[in-house]
């Protein structure tokens, strides 16, 4: 039973005045993640946009304990928090590892793979804005093909996005889910569920980035929704090996009214150099993945 908006906890764990860019999807997501996980959360984070959100010493707008760590070490840091808390008999804390796509898909993959294989008791969130946004929109392995970045400035990225979610599923986590900051209730429900599961929980969170993707700051929610409505992002969860579509993706599966990817791509400056042929190829890629996931969900 999805949580109703009116039933969201009133308590806020992020004070107004974070240092994220205008229109950033991250504080929307983080606000609801912390509402779901509560005050006994210890977050660990590498150098990333979330570090910026957390602010500069000696002030922070975040009302949970936070441990910053090196770029490639988020899951190791979380493993240390989990081990330290267990050694001290503090079993009522939630360890939340939260890193961007660079600190997860790329540099952080070793530590995350190791921690997931050990079935470390933590929630790992990769908030994916599809490039190294904190350092100024450089290509990552999460950047989709056809996107312009500051390290693919002339010829857009040629290779498709790394299918990291499948890599994580191959680690047999206790819980795996995808979500998007444009659907805070879907996100809230998934983190509420993850909180009460033991073992490694991995959540892939899509976060639209107006600065890096090139759309007006007022359209953050709309762009994230378009990502889901076009099937570029699919909302689902895997619990005990059982695959389930959720939220908007589930209703799309039922109604079969997926929008063309062009509706999503055309609103973002990063895709302005895509040719009609590349858009067609992108559409085919999205369709193929969608059909696979539909079949998996029993449609």
């Amino acid at each position, binding site marked *: 039973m999805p949580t109703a908006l009116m039933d969201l906890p009133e308590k806020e764990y992020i004070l107004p005045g974070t240092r994220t860019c205008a229109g950033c999807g991250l504080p929307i997501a983080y606000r609801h993640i912390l509402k779901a996980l509560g005050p006994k959360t210890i977050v*660990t984070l590498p150098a990333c946009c979330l570090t910026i959100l957390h602010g500069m*010493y000696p002030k922070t707008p975040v009302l*949970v*304990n936070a441990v910053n760590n090196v770029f490639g070490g988020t899951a190791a840091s979380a493993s*240390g928090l989990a081990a*330290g808390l267990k050694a001290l008999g503090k079993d009522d804390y939630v360890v939340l590892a939260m890193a961007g796509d660079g600190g997860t898909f790329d540099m952080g993959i*070793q530590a995350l793979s190791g921690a997931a294989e050990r079935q470390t008791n933590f929630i790992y969130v990769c908030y994916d804005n599809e490039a190294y946004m904190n350092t100024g929109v450089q290509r990552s392995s999460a950047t989709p093909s056809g996107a312009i970045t500051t390290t693919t400035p002339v010829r857009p990225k040629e290779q498709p996005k790394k299918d990291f979610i499948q890599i994580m599923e191959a680690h047999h986590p206790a819980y795996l889910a995808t979500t998007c900051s444009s659907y805070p209730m879907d996100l809230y429900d998934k983190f509420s569920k993850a909180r009460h599961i033991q073992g490694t929980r991995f959540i892939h969170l899509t976060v639209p980035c107006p600065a890096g993707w090139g759309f007006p700051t007022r359209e953050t929610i709309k762009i994230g929704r378009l990502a889901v409505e076009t099937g570029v992002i699919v909302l689902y969860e895997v619990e005990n090996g059982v695959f389930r579509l959720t939220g908007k993706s589930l209703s799309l599966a039922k109604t079969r009214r997926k929008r063309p990817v062009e509706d999503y791509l055309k609103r973002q400056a990063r895709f302005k150099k895509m040719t009609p042929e590349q858009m067609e190829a992108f559409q085919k890629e999205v369709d193929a993945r969608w059909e696979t996931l539909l079949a998996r969900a029993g449609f």
Partner: protein
Amino acid sequence: MAAQILTGNQTAALAAKLCRVQVVAAYPITPQSKIPEVLSEYVERGELQAEFVRVESEHSAMGVCISASLVGARAFTATAANGLAYMHEQLHWAAGARVPIVMPVTNRGLGAPWTILNDMQDSIAQRDTGWMQLYCQNNQEILDQIILGYKVAERLLVPVMVCFDGFRLSHTMMPVDVPDQEAVDAFLPPFTPPYQLDPERPININPVVMTDPLPGSDGRLHPGYMGIRRRLQEALESAVDVIAEEGRIFGERFGRSYEHPIIEYQLDDAEIVFVTMGSLGSEASEACDLLREQGIRAGVASLRVFRPFPKQAVRDSLCRAPRLAVVEKAISYGLEGALATEIKAALYGLNDRQPIVANYIVGLGGKDVKPSDLCDIARQALTFGRHEDAPSHAIWFSNEI
């Protein structure tokens, strides 16, 4: 207290157990591998109550230790050579985060090309990470300095490397006096971090820091980056005295004093002094005896503490000697051995009492160093009559191509 015959690695694991470490991050690398193996047995048999995290890399091993320490657990790991180099980023992070981790380093040469055998290039290359570095002459010192290391680290909130020569100590059995658990407990109380993770008063540990001090919400000025760096340096400067004080207390409790940062042998009338670290100190003492039988007044100053660098003790120990042979198993490429540079720097300003210093690089990649080799070194160093006679570069003591 009971004597046991132990290898250096077994000794290090036993010391960690006596220190009641609470989180162990374990990753194997030759010649250190036996340390996590022995500890895993202790944990699985229930002899040690600790979380044993079988990490996937040394980079993660240190990451686990740092965060475990930040939540208040006594954390331990061990490494060597390229594993230590792989940790490099995390070593800076540990010192900067001011976590009191103690880590044995079984000194091994760094690739490329590969060697598994001993020199000190690995730990010397980590000299500037903000860690304290203690070196051991024998297995007894491994045990004692790990216990002492936690005491000092937790007092100053600075991590400690306890370095000992790979294979030469790590795989060599020696009698070790093992103190009772009660005695160690009395010397080393449980770790209590200076802050608690409190949901009512949340903190952001190791955040972004600006260059200059900024006011907090309390209106007080808090240090900027440089101020935070200065505090680490001040802690390391004060560490010279803290190590001496705790080393003296250790001596009162356990009968083996670690008050002085330099192990001195036959220094009073020495005309040539070997200055060295680690197990080379034992070999230099042998050479010293041989030389004295031949009428050459040799002595040994073996540094037990390399960081913080015991500058005053070095001056006091060495200012009477006319000649020094700084013999070391590492080199700072492009100049000379780092120990030689630091010894010379410590002696700067002694004017007419400044010894003539010759620097010898020996034993890289496990190259054997016999007492007779050290005797040859001493005889050569004695021929340098004036400062200008000693070569301005390091002398490679090796007879091969």
